[in-house]
């Protein structure tokens, strides 16, 4: 039986391993809240630069928030060439 992994989520704690879908959903929620975009307007394959109306520095800022949320460290290069939420989720998932 796989051991349970504890991930910090803000002040709360997850007591099970996230699936990629959960990771993606949390990214979309966080992006919607942080950039004040209605959650229903964001879909996994959206180009986040365009949908959120952000530049590459603001995208790095989003990466920092995701680091805090998922409690992982993501080098800047993980974002290089990535522009959709789905790929971003898989990059984060591989480090969880």
């Amino acid at each position, binding site marked *: 039986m796989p051991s349970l992994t504890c991930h910090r989520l803000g002040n709360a704690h997850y007591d099970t391993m996230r699936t990629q879908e959960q990771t993606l959903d949390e990214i979309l929620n966080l992006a919607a809240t942080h950039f004040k975009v209605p959650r229903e307007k964001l879909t996994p394959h959206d180009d986040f630069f365009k949908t959120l109306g952000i*530049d590459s*520095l603001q995208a790095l*800022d989003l990466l920092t928030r995701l680091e805090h949320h998922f409690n992982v460290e993501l080098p*800047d290069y993980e974002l*290089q060439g990535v522009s959709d939420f789905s790929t971003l989720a898989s990059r984060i998932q591989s480090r969880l």
Partner: protein
Amino acid sequence: MLDLRQYTCLGAALRDAIERWPNETCLIEADRDREKQRLTFSDFKDLAIPRVRALQDVDLKPGDRAAIIMTNQSKWLVSAYAIFYAGGVLVPLDYKLTAAEHIQLLLHSKAKYLVVEYYLWRAIMQHPQFGNLKFRTVLVTEAPAGSELAGAFRWEEFRRKGDPEFVNRQKQDAACIVYSSGTGGRPKGCVLTHENYLEQCIALTAWYPFWPGVRYLSILPTNHAIDFMVGFIGPFVCGACVVHLRTLRPEYVRDAFSRYKITYVSLVPMVLKNLERGLKAKFDELSKAKRFLLERAIAINKLLTRKRPRVALSRKLLPQVHAAFGGELQALITGGAFMEPSTMQFFYDLGIPVVNGYGLTEGGTALTLNDLKPFRADTVGKPLPGVELRILNPDAEGIGEVAARSKTVMSHYLDDPELTAQTIVDGWLLTGDLGRFDGDHHLQLFGRKKNMIVTEGGKNIYPEDVENAFDGLAVKEYCIFAANYVWPSKSLGREMLVLVLRLENNQEFNQELRNDLNARNRSLPDFKRVGGYVIWDKDFPRTASMKIKRTELAEEVRNRLQRSAVVGL
């Protein structure tokens, strides 16, 4: 600083700087809030010399080309110094390019040696074109234990005992091949000589000197002409220190100012705007009383710094603002892209001078710079010492193409005599930028004559280089232009690429085509994306060899369509 006039090459100047200030700190490297490394010039030498010996043992000969692809870090500068020491020619490549682009430029440059960061090497190794690369030696930094390196050496282990031979180069010898653009299309490798760099360094430090104790925050990629000069050569030959960050997250960049008491930093407009946004948000959080006091202090500062910056006084008037920048900041330097005057004025009013300059890789680092006598937010400054500028074919308003003559102008484009002859005419570099001089001999820029854009992140984008991403698009033909090239504008705002689409007979622009366009556009790095399209109803004019006559097509589009016809993508 060293008297650079006595040197014929960068290697000798750097070698003597290292000997002159052995105990001064020359490099600090931090990752987020963790300091990873701090080197004196003596430590730097200890890292570099065994690697020079090792490079010479693997047969690096004077004139051999060696490429570096790395994020900003001490190993970049150590490797570059080792290459110069052995008489090599440095090919600094932009780490933000894709593996395919790296391979294209590595092939074009004919680099025999490569120093590369592991994650970039991994991407290059996995690319189908990898087999085309032929190196004598590849050094990979920070490769995880047990990782497959395809015959490359680990940088950390690549060192040999024994004294290497210092190889002196002549002023006219190539020091670097710097790609100003051209990935995907026609690579433009600017061959810059040792004289180009030495003269540029003399000119820049005449106006903005470095000295031991100065700390320069290196944010622009080191392959970029500006950071290579002011984040490596300039500080080193003056005994100053360079601070590298392994992340460009805005909060860590902000934090670095105060942690390392930064003296100078070069920034692209995007970063400066980000800092402005952050400061304004902080100001908005102030209580009414504190906001009132802040605005009074700013008003007094503006009054007292009308004629020239008085940084020490500004620090007293606005202590909290200056403390957030470390309290030692002398100036923010911008260049490589065009800055909004309101942003520069915002910082100047706070007592933080913004030095705006203008340059292009072909001209060295900078051709003009603001001397702050007084601060001007509406110009890119005056020609640097040794730089002659003139305006070609000025119109009634005095606006024409800027041409430059200087010892800092590149020797030529690598393996492209035709493009060189079009670009350097009778010793004058034709910049393709439109400008005029005002009464105080300050240069003002108004737009571009050439078909290219410069992004807020400081990237030169040539439309031809982006067209590959649309190969196979289900239309009769297409062409990409810079919007300001098709519809000339005496302003540098709203720069974007526009796709001109010629559909097949009876073809409609449907959702499927739109989706395909969007998908291809997304496959490009964000700074290279096309901003919109226009539908064109005539076949493109072509040469006998079927190349699109771009100038003619742009003129036809200009004559029949307004810029407002562009549909956003």
